[in-house]
């Protein structure tokens, strides 16, 4: 089904998506309509133009592809499905996401992957091709975040205050330049086993956006994990 979103309100657009019979939905002339695919299930949504904020919030098993840039709060608290962005993404992408994948060809704004979490077989993934703004993965509690830094090889591709409050999950950064990190985060050189662990993720990214996975993987990665000595336990005394 094709939808021309020109001059259409977000509410009408979402109603049309929900009401569509088939799995595939193509949206053209999108211009900032918010909440597209919010809580949506079982659709394959293709977007030309620029979707507005909160694209794919609470997404439950939908695929969304954006042939351009996306704005803020992409995949807020999403549970399943894949969001593919053939451009850059705004702030607060993947906030509190629990499962599913967010793949961004370009860069992400501030506060990406905050409070990403995991539970049993639910393990979310976010791959950013370029760089990210400050506060990446604050409070990370689970899942995998991979920053490839393509085109930013001469600098650290993540901003300041990366991983503040991280207490679970893992992050990989493809760079020679380690970020400044809080004492509660462990930063190691990724070894062969680590590279193997992210091989499928990077291959997926490369396939979606036309890169050579071998080439991307044949570089230095840092692996960031929470320091096992829990930084929060000793914070309080009973009163």
């Amino acid at each position: 089904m094709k939808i021309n979103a020109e001059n259409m309100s977000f509410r009408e657009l979402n109603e049309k998506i929900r009401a569509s019979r088939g799995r595939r939905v193509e949206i053209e002339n999108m211009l900032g309509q918010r909440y597209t695919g919010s809580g949506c299930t079982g659709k394959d949504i293709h977007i030309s133009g620029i979707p507005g904020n909160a694209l794919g919030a609470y997404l439950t098993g939908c695929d969304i592809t954006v042939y351009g840039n996306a704005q803020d709060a992409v995949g807020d608290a999403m549970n399943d499905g894949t969001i593919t962005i053939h451009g850059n993404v705004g702030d607060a992408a993947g906030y509190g996401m629990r499962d599913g994948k967010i793949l961004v060809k370009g860069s992400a704004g501030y506060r990406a992957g905050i409070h990403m979490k995991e539970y049993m077989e639910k393990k979310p993934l976010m791959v950013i091709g370029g760089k990210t703004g400050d506060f990446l993965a604050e409070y990370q509690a689970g899942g995998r975040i991979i920053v490839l830094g393509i085109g930013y090889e001469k600098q650290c591709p993540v901003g300041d205050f990366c991983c503040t409050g991280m207490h679970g999950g893992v992050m990989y950064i493809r760079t020679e330049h380690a970020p400044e990190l809080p004492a509660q985060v462990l930063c190691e050189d990724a070894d062969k086993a680590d590279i193997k662990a992210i091989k499928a993720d990077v291959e997926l990214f490369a396939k979606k956006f036309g890169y050579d996975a071998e080439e991307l993987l044949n570089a230095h990665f840092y692996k960031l994990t929470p320091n096992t000595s829990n930084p929060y336990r000793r914070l309080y005394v009973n009163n």
Partner: protein
Amino acid sequence: MPVNYFPAEFEVLRNYDKCISCRACERQCANEVHYYDADFGKMLAHENQCVDCQRCVCICPTGALKIRPNENSFRKSANYTQPLMTEAYRQAGTGSVLLSSMGTPKDYPVYWDKILLNASQVTNPPIDPLREPMETRVFLGKKPTQMKFDKNGELDTTLEPSLTLNVPIMFSAMSYGSISKNAHESLARAAEGLGTFYNTGEGGLHKDFYKYGANTIVQVASGRFGVHKDYLNAGAAIEIKMGQGAKPGIGGHLPGEKIKEDVAHTRMIPRGTDAISPAPHHDIYSIEDLRQLIFSVKEATEYKKPVIVKIAAVHNVAAIASGVARSGADIIAIDGFRGGTGAAPTRIRDNVGIPIELALAAVDGRLRHEGIRNEVSIVAAGSIRCSSDAVKAIALGADAVYIATPALLAMGCHLCRSCHTGKCNWGIATQNPELVKRLNPDIAYKRLVNLVTAWNHEIQEIMGGMGINSIEALRGNRLMLRGIGLTEKELQILGILHAGE
């Protein structure tokens, strides 16, 4: 010899003439206070572990026990009080932040106790609620501001989604994790029995309780625990928690020890990991951002459910509430600083925020002044202790009230303020299976129903005395209130006259 800088807070007084050494107190105390000493042939106590939860006193078959404050006292000072000195010793020993539970015990003014209610005499006679109908049903949500007609001239009767409460009282948010499964079950069944609502708090909704969805408010907080599409659609309303009265401006931290299998499953986080709720929602930095979250949950639930935004009562609460009312929220819950909590840093709990009475009056006044009072309903929370507090809150402008501490009391809580230790001997604020099974939901839910039913009778009687037969006519009816012993400024903020005026 190690020095103990501060003595036990409580004394365990055991009447050995009555004590039969049955050791029931020993078995009942998760703090391991009581023990049997074979050499002495009698029960003794580790008094420094006692939290004064009164469980042993209530369970002792011979009435042999009393717990009372330790009479030992540091040298008296009105400035450096014994609690302040003790807290300094605790922190000097650990280097840690003081952590407390439940509402502040400090002696701040309670305005409910300085407000008196009116009654009819001679003219506009009182109404007997036993003889005449007395409406306490409340509808929460946006109210239409004008009549609309369709093309054929027919009145448009579609309304925004709302909640229908048979009593103007709901159970406020307490998460599964901070309180036990049996406590949640009791609240859910009581809400169903009363025709009102309980609130999941931010810990998700246990799979066994989806069946109470019609009486459930599901909460979305900064940690987004257990939030997914089915959860959002499970409840009758969705509450976005921006703040909590007991700890405005900070997040939550449920320690890993409380994250047992079932709690982990409900929150959807691994067992034994800390559940940390960040202080802010990291996607909300403005009213516009709040509007975005409200509409994203509305889209996910197809505009079928009202959205509540819960804010803590802080200095600028009226301006904040005005923003919230314009953000698309259907209901605003305002939580005063004397409200309870499962765990909060002591200094925050005891010093941050303002009383609900002043916040409520300020918000209601502001929204009326701006002509947007009908855009939202107001729920007052944060130490509504009894039915007369509820009546005063409604007369100050609330549509309904949230209660939590009285609900805990109904289930047996004795306000020992030790929820954060996870060793609740009453089976409420614990995940220890041995302790949890002490709370029987079959009994506890009836006690909750009894409490609220009794309050509702009292509300009807008070309303009847005023000559009012509908809660709608009480809402914002400040003429029914008079202050006693309040300053001009306090009366001005509350928008009420002094007694005698």
